[in-house]
């Protein structure tokens, strides 16, 4: 019996050795399979290499293709790895600890820059920075060094199905402020049975959709408050002076929607998008990044446009779309000099070469560089038309939000309760989440 046990034990050990060997094999293979990395030592000394940690999964294929083309043209190895939004910061943390850390990464707002400042190369005076047409989307650290460059920008507002709007007897020109938006929306709601569609797609508060309201819609009261107070960096407290306007627009969304307020908590981003693409709703609050998805879902570009978000603030007939960015590039200051140079050369090539600018226009719309190509995305055309007509740009005030995910979660909780039961008491909870929540999160982050 003992002999048998001994034999079995030996077998198990032997097997576990084989198992260890088996798991090691692919690991040992990996560098060999990764051709650019294997060639790297030879190329390294002269030209360095590029490792880009991308955070837009939808652009991954385009980046891979562009990287391959750059390598073919110049011989400089470019590795692109994509970590989706939710995974980005943990991936960045893990990758930065490695010997072969990313040389090019995303650092989207001041909070991010505070965390990564010492890893961000000062880009002042580089050839790449010389290609920029505007300083509006760049991030500077406390010492005034240019650390992160906004390589594209985005805009959001109320995406509108012009065809359905006309079916209801209105044109885009009829909507110029909150009162006219409200009149149109309520008229559509009154006739929705006859028309066969609703005014707004569901303002879902599932986590796949709630950021549109706790983040983007909340930008409206934040923007106007900060504009009044001349705020330029994250304030410790906010007053919520424009929260009544926030309530105006939120009431409009939930009362003129494809579903009831109590159902909103479970509605997802896909639900809302489907409401819009299937012609069940005229309006859909979202951003320029949705363009490709809407076209893919079979919508006609000529019948789409984007309206500013109106919420009843004085003078808002002059408002444009909400434009800003969290897409900022930073170069790893702790990478070797050769790698830094290779990375900067690659970035310059992306924003100057024909292949690079074509890809950027297709994937990211307009980019703030001299050689930029005009994108076909109609939402940017709408943004440009509004700016050309002298309307003011609503900037992304929400970039100042302290401990942003946590702050938004509290606002979403309160919004969901209010939507299910729109009483004044429940709205007070939204105000508490907004104002007290801000002060609390600020103290957590800076305390």
């Amino acid at each position, binding site marked *: 019996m003992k002999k048998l046990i001994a034999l079995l034990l030996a077998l198990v050990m032997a097997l576990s050795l084989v198992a260890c060997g088996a798991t090691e094999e692919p690991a040992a293979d990996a560098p060999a399979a990764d051709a650019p990395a294997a060639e790297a030592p030879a190329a390294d000394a002269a030209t360095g290499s590029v490792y880009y940690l991308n955070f837009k999964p939808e652009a991954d294929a385009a980046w891979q293709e562009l990287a391959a083309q750059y390598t073919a043209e110049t011989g400089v190895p470019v590795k692109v790895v994509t970590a989706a939004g939710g995974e980005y910061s943990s991936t960045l*943390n893990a990758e930065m600890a490695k010997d072969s850390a990313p040389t090019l990464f995303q650092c989207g707002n001041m909070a991010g820059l505070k965390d990564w400042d010492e890893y961000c190369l000062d880009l002042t005076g580089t050839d790449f920075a010389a290609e920029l047409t505007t300083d509006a989307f760049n991030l500077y650290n406390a010492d005034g060094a240019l650390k992160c460059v906004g390589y594209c920008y985005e805009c959001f507002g109320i995406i509108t199905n012009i065809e359905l709007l006309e079916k209801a007897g209105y044109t885009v020109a009829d909507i110029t402020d909150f009162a006219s938006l409200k009149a149109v929306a309520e008229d559509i709601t009154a006739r929705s049975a006859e028309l066969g569609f609703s005014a707004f797609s569901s303002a879902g508060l599932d986590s796949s959709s709630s950021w549109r309201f706790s983040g983007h819609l909340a930008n409206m009261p934040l923007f106007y408050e900060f504009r009044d107070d001349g705020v330029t960096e994250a304030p410790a407290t906010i007053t919520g002076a424009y929260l009544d306007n926030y309530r105006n627009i939120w009431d409009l969304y939930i009362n003129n929607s494809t579903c009831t307020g109590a159902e909103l*908590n479970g509605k997802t981003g896909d639900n809302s998008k489907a409401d819009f693409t299937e012609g069940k709703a005229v309006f859909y609050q979202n951003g320029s990044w949705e363009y490709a998805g809407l076209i893919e879902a079979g919508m006609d570009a000529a019948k789409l446009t984007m309206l500013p978000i109106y919420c009843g603030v004085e003078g808002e007939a002059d408002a444009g779309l909400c434009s800003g960015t969290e897409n900022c590039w930073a170069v790893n200051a702790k990478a070797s000099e050769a790698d830094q140079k290779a990375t900067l050369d690659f970035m310059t090539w992306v924003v100057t070469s024909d292949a690079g600018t074509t890809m950027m226009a297709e994937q990211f719309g307009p980019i703030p560089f001299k050689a930029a190509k005009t994108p076909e995305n109609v939402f940017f055309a709408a943004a440009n038309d509004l700016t050309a007509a002298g309307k003011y740009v609503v900037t992304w005030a929400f970039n100042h939000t302290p401990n942003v995910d946590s702050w938004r979660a*509290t606002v979403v*909780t309160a919004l969901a*309760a209010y939507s299910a039961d729109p009483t004044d008491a429940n709205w007070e909870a939204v105000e*508490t989440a907004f104002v007290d929540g801000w002060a609390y999160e600020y103290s957590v982050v800076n305390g």
Partner: protein
Amino acid sequence: MAKSKKSSSVNLVQRPIKKWAPLFILPTFAAFLIGFVWPFIQGIYLSFCNFNIPTDAKWVGLDNYAKVFKDAGFLNAFWNTAAFAVVSIILINVLAFFIAYALTQKMRGANIFRTVFFMPNLIGGVVLGYIWSMIFDGILKNYATYLTANPTYGFWGLVILVAWQQIGYMMIIYIAGLQAVPEDMLEAARIDGATGSQTLFRVIIPNVMPSITTCTFLTLTNSFKMFDQNMALTGGMPSIMENGAKINATELLALNIFSTYNISKNYHGVAQAKAVIFFILVAVLAITQQYMTRSKEVQQ
């Protein structure tokens, strides 16, 4: 003569085992060192540091621990976890025991029932969380409310989910224990005229104490380490401002540690400190529980 022959054959087997054991243990031991011991020590070190990535840690002493005890969210998560552990340990073990008891009686289809009850355990926690959140929301919709409207819904939702998932697993352990209860003891109890409940409490339960030890240990540690299900079912929502501080009303400890890490780089060390406290807590509880239930085990 016979005795010495036996011992020499034992030596023949045992001596090479003793001699070569270290070699055979080495790969596993190395894996254990690299994959467990080293990260564990580094984790404790990092709990005293401010760091963005582990290689640029700066020593800050007890600052992180001071922050942990000032955090209302952590204390709230602790009490949530304690309440959740108590409820789920009782519920899961009682139900698992009685299902196991029923399925060890002679009944048609007992094997099919065992399989069916065990199956939920094969589904991953995140998947279960999302599926159950749809089920709960679907039911609560009829009452014009939803799962994250009220912390009580989220708490009991999690209890139901975890009970559904784990009862089958514990049931298997109890079935094994029940089948090992000596038939002659049960027969003696019958002959002595013991009632059903006397047989249960005086004969069966003392004999399955080893299974109870195992199952309470598993349910205790599972409840304290609960993460996936908590994240997928409610994600800690609703988030409420209370007395000037914010709490995630259905957040358990593991999820609280996870979300602390993501606040900013100054909180990486705080999350690490929470994890160390969490480890000590679970270790103390598990050891105490083992000691208490072991002492009730009987020698057959």
